[in-house]
């Protein structure tokens, strides 16, 4: 299978503070990858570097074979890489409908805006009810739905979700997992960052563990991965 996204030995960070120390990963067409690991070890930084908000210091990032390492964020969105940021309220003083309309800003997404809007409202019926409300008046779960909805309006060819269930109640979490599952079923390649490993196991085929700014372990969902093993990876072996 052809690689959709190739990240090759990328280092980077904020200002002069390095966060990523040589990350490499490859995502194939139709594949869904989950990223997990302790907080502050570079998962979000990696997504921000792929989407062009940060420039990689070294290494290369390729999308469908062409390098995107030095492109502007809006050019990267034009190619179809869409990053739904962690806990984003989107455009707080605009209505839900207006937020969604802006999601289709890129020239590639605009012709299909009407069809995509219908699809988004099918996946998240609650956004239809809240259509006229300002984004800032939404609950945490609804904000998350809006952020993902706006991402889908950009007609993604690779969707990156950063902790979509952060801080949500279990019932909402299930609702969101179902929605992300529905999105995954359409065949859009996914790069999913999440703390909840069970959530990742349900939705992705491959899990990468990121620690100290590098991929340190890889699991496949089939390889009977149990929670105890991951707890061990996180916290080390229990000292008796």
């Amino acid at each position, binding site marked *: 299978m052809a690689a959709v996204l190739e990240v090759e030995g990328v280092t980077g960070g904020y*200002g002069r503070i390095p966060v990523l120390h040589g990350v490499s990963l490859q995502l194939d067409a139709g594949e869904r990858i989950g990223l997990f690991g302790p907080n502050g070890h570079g998962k979000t930084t990696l997504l921000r570097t792929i*989407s*062009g*908000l940060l420039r990689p210091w070294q290494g290369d990032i390729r999308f469908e074979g062409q390098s995107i390492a030095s492109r*502007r*964020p*809006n050019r990267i*969105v*034009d190619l179809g890489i*869409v*990053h*739904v*940021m962690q806990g*984003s*309220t*989107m*455009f*707080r*003083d*605009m209505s839900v409908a*207006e937020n969604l*309309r*802006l*999601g*289709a*800003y*890129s020239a590639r*997404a605009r012709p299909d805006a009407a069809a995509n809007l219908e699809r988004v409202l099918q996946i998240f019926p609650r956004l239809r009810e809240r259509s006229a409300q300002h984004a800032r008046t939404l609950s945490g779960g609804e904000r998350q739905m809006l*952020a993902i909805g*706006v*991402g889908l*309006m*950009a007609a993604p060819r690779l969707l990156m979700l950063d902790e979509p269930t952060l801080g949500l109640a279990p019932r909402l979490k299930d609702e969101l997992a179902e929605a992300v599952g529905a999105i995954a079923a359409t065949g859009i390649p996914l790069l999913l960052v999440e703390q909840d490993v069970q959530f990742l196991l349900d939705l992705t085929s491959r899990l990468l563990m990121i620690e100290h700014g590098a991929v340190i372990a890889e699991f496949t969902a089939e390889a009977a991965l149990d929670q105890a093993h991951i707890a061990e990876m996180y916290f080390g072996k229990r000292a008796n």
Partner: protein
Amino acid sequence: MDILSSVLLSGVVLGSLYALMATGLALVWTTLGIFNFAHGIFIALGAYVAWQFGTEEGFGLGATIGIVAAVSLLAALGCLIERTLVRPFLGHRNLVLAVVITTLAALIFLENSALLVWGPRFKQLPPLVDGTLAIGGLDIAAHEVLIVLLSPALLLALWAFLRLTYMGAALRAVSQNQDAALMVGIPVPVLFALAFGISAALAAIAGVLLGSIRFITPAMGNEPLVKALIVAIFGGLGSISGTIGGAYVIGMLEAVCVYFIGLYWTPAALFLCMILVLLVRPQGLFGRVD
């Protein structure tokens, strides 16, 4: 009664001019989160360019071409200043301070350039419309009527652009969440330049209007700029409609103060008002608490 009406009229004229200037300041403030100190020189340059192109002492091409030249050249200058003096510092930790310095430098540079080019002699634009209109038993200069009508019309057009067009929505999106705007593919730097361009164009129009009721000097924009700053803070920085409301309140207040306590104490009274309002409503008169 007559005196009261002329004080009110003068307040509305001032308010209209402040609204044009302060809205430009507020637009740049909301979109980029910076304060543009060079805004005052845009007013003076707008008047000079209109004079240069329009009047007989200049190229003598007529008032219309003068105004078109002023608006388009100033819009271009606004974009240029954004590109050269603001954009290099975007994302920098000390962005606000750096831009204070660069735009102050631009102000001084452009002010002295204007002095070199056009000389120290005071100039004046002819009124855009001659004569007086009798409204409600009051003789009002037609030019003042034009100011009072044109300014709200332009601001209404700006409102319509921001509310009803896709690009306007993108501009508001950038001001509300820059990262999210980048992530839906909005070319944020282009919209920064657009905000600067619109802001400078509005200042140019204010300059053209002001240039026929006061003398054109390189420093003519500084005093209105201070007033516009009071307006922007008073009305609630970041809210365009609050800024417009604040402009008329300040304009009216200034007219009343000038009449009752005199020109000399008026700025002090205005600043006192601003401080009092901020003590009670730190978010500004029409601002919203987040």
